[in-house]
């Protein structure tokens, strides 16, 4: 099945300038994309507009997000990819 343009767009936006982010987003999408609620998808969409360095800081636990929704999505992503 070809991916829908929306799925492809999301995957493309997950292509980042840092390997760490590529790995985190790809693992997350593979494992959990189908379980995401509409609200979580919107949050993910919003988060993908952040600069790479900020995403790196959030997803690698350097700093928390002040936004409650983003903060809970970050926790969900980190839990999903935890070794």
């Amino acid at each position: 099945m070809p991916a829908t343009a929306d799925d492809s767009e999301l995957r493309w936006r997950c292509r980042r300038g840092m390997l760490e982010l590529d790995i985190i987003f790809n693992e997350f999408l593979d494992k959990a994309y189908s379980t995401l609620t509409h609200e979580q998808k919107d949050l993910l969409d919003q988060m993908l507009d952040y600069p790479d360095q900020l995403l790196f800081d959030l997803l690698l636990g350097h700093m928390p997000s002040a936004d409650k929704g983003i903060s809970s999505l970050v926790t969900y992503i980190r839990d999903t990819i935890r070794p």
Partner: protein
Amino acid sequence: MSINDIQRRRFDTLIIGAGGGGLRAALQLAEADASVAVVSKVFPTRSHTVAAQGGMNAALANVLPDNWHWHMFDTVKGSDYLGDQDAIEYMCRAAPKVVYELEHSGVPFSRLDNGKIYQRPFGGQSQNFGGDQAARTCAAADRTGHAILHSLYQQNIRAKTHFFDEYFAVDLLKDEQGNVLGAFVFDIHTGEELIIEAKTTLLATGGAGQLFRTTTNALINTGDGMGMALRAGVPLQDMEFFQFHPTGIAGRGMLITEGARGEGGYLVNCEGERLMERYAPKAKDLASRDVVSRSIYTEVKEGRGCGPNRDHVMLKLDHLGEAVLQKRLPGIRQTCITFLGIDPAEQPIPVYPTAHYTMGGIPTDRYGQVVIPVKDTPEEPVHGLYAAGECACVSVHGANRLGGNSLLDILVFGRSAANHIIETLKETRYHRPMDEDSIAQAYERLHRWDATGDGESVEQIRTDLKKAMEENCGVFRSQDVLDNGVKQVSAIAERLKHARINDNTSMFNTARVEALELENLMDVALATVYSAAARTESRGAHSRIDYPDRDDKHWMRHSLYSLEDRKLDYKPVRTKPMSVPSFPPKARVY
């Protein structure tokens, strides 16, 4: 859309790539009132330059005595005498100026208590031509690349550079005489194709780390500009030299920066022995990258690796204490916790060499002009074509790049290419007419992926290519291994011709983008493995078990691989610097 309906846009200069190299050039041009288009397959500030956390070199002498001439010596020695000494002198002399320019444009460099820019020691840096360790690397905490990229992007927006974000460049376009006149690109969102006509074109598409399975490079680093150059008839230079960073997280590839060893971390084998004391008694863990990578490989090969499969060594940082780790190396700590579930303040990190940097690339002179051999002249400029950054080979890194010298390279030569382009534009008043065949070829290459029917998947071929490259063209090489690499990669390249994608829509067809990227990677892989199999010596990153020594008599020369007939040619190294005596080749001891 038929080929005749494709829209055309005209600019003085087209820059393909919006990393540090492309953006530095664009800024220089836009400030000189040239009309500049920058095409990037990802949003500019997501270019790979953002990943450079360690810093950039400049002999500022803020922490320890230093000068550009010592920096030059280290770079020539680090290159294992394959670097061109005129370009190296140019770069090392320009370095302080480039750092101060960045400082003035707002890059927040870390400071010493006296207010001067902080500089940390990195591998391969020395005082006084090979003496004590130097401290030459300037950093904006551990986000140097991010700070530089964002600053350059903002300045470009102010200078009115025209950005084509998320556009993919397929191929260069030429006229019948071979002058480069722009590129064929398409909008990844809509699939809409566009011909960008330009009086001058600069390739700044970055490296090709995705050639290997274990790499520090992001997925976007697929050597596209190198592929485009090859198809335009430009050979690739010194592709056998691929840098493996000694300390990648074992099995995953992520970089543990050299800064970790700069701050006092060291490598141990399964016996707890500090292994670098044996291989580089003086510089130890701060010896140059190829030396450290090979030492790790040797430990593992001789059975002194760690872990259940004895397939890696350990990087110890726990003795530095939590406070130092948190202050100086916060990134590493969190990387280990996130991807390994271990805290380096308590436990050592499993590490193994990981593919990191493409030393070879599109041959240029120090003005960024792409140069190719024509008849008896080894370096004849290709009219209208420039290259800068990791996709280029100018060559300042020769057989091995020193840490912190790449950010410097992309900025220095991005700038110098722009200066040369400004001069060229003064003499180039009009756009030349394109060769319509050249457009047709690019169009066909793109639309070949519209074909439906049975065929192997791009993903499978990519996986096989990366495995073949890792196993047959990695850290340690021999004739058997490399010949096998040539055979395997050639067979995989054949399979690609019959591959299919199962998506022929226009909107966000990322399957097609990945197919085009794989075509580029494939040509770059062939260049790499062919050049490596032919070079019967060990030099820098190209290390052979069967030819363990450097052979200056036969091999102090640059390789040039052409797509046509997969032919290899060679040209001399420029050993004559601009103003100082040259550094003659010596044994490289650290």
